[in-house]
C-alpha cells in the first residue's frame, strides 16, 4: 500500500518558516535534521495528527523556485491548502497575530476558503468543509 507521508512547501528561510508554521499557524516540529550547508530536513505535523502527514519546509535554493513562487503569488495561487474546523475563528485569531490575508473567508459552496501569506514566499489556503452540502 502506498501512502502520502510527506508533502512540502518551498520556504525562503527555514528558521523563519519554522517560527511561522509552529508559533503562528500552530503546527509542531517533527524532524529537524541537518543536510549540509544551511539546509535542514525540517518537517512539522498537526497536533491533531502527530504521526500523520508531515509538512516539509523545503529550502528554496534552486534557481527555478524563486520565479515559480513569484508567479504563483502574483496570480493568488496557494502553494497548498490546510483544513480547519472553524475558519472564521482561525481568520480572526491569525489576523490578530498580524497575519496578512489576501482573501478573507469566502463561501464557495461545499467549502469556505481563505488565503494567507506565510511570510516565506507563499500563499496558503485554509479550508473548512461545510456540512453535507
Amino acid at each position, binding site marked *: 500500500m502506498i501512502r502520502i507521508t510527506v508533502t512540502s512547501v518551498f520556504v525562503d528561510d527555514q528558521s523563519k518558516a519554522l517560527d511561522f508554521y509552529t508559533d503562528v499557524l500552530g503546527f509542531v516540529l517533527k524532524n529537524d535534521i541537518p543536510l549540509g550547508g544551511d539546509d535542514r530536513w525540517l518537517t512539522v505535523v498537526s497536533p491533531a495528527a502527530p504521526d500523520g502527514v508531515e509538512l516539509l519546509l523545503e529550502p528554496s535554493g534552486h534557481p527555478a523556485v524563486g520565479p515559480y513562487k513569484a508567479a504563483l503569488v502574483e496570480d*493568488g*495561487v*496557494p502553494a497548498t491548502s490546510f483544513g480547519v474546523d472553524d475558519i472564521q475563528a482561525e481568520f480572526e485569531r491569525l489576523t490578530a497575530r498580524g497575519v496578512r490575508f489576501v482573501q*478573507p473567508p*469566502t463561501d*464557495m*459552496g461545499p467549502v469556505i476558503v481563505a*488565503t494567507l501569506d506565510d511570510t516565506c514566499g507563499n500563499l496558503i489556503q485554509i479550508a473548512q468543509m461545510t456540512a453535507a452540502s
Partner: protein
Amino acid sequence: MAADVFKALADATRRAILDELQDRDGQSLFEICTRLTMRHGLGSTRQAVSQHLDVLEQAGLVVVRREGRYKFHHHDTGPLREITSRWPLPDEGQSS
C-alpha cells in the same frame, strides 16, 4: 472607449466577473477563477479568465493594482455613466 464598454459587457462571463468584484472588490486572478467555477459553474481556464480581465481593463471597468508581490483586480463602474448620459433615465418617481 464607449464601444469597448459595450463589447466588454456583451459577455456573460465578463458580467459574472463584475458581479463577483461587486461582491468583494480587490481579488486575485485565482480568487476570480475559483468564484466563477464554484458559484457560476463556469469552468473557464485561467488563460481565458485572464483574457476576459484584459477586455474589462481596456474598457476601464476593471483596474489592476499591484501591491508588493500581489496583483489585485478592482472594478470601476465609472464608464457605465456613458450609457445613462447618452440615454438618460427618467426622473426618479416619474417612471413606472
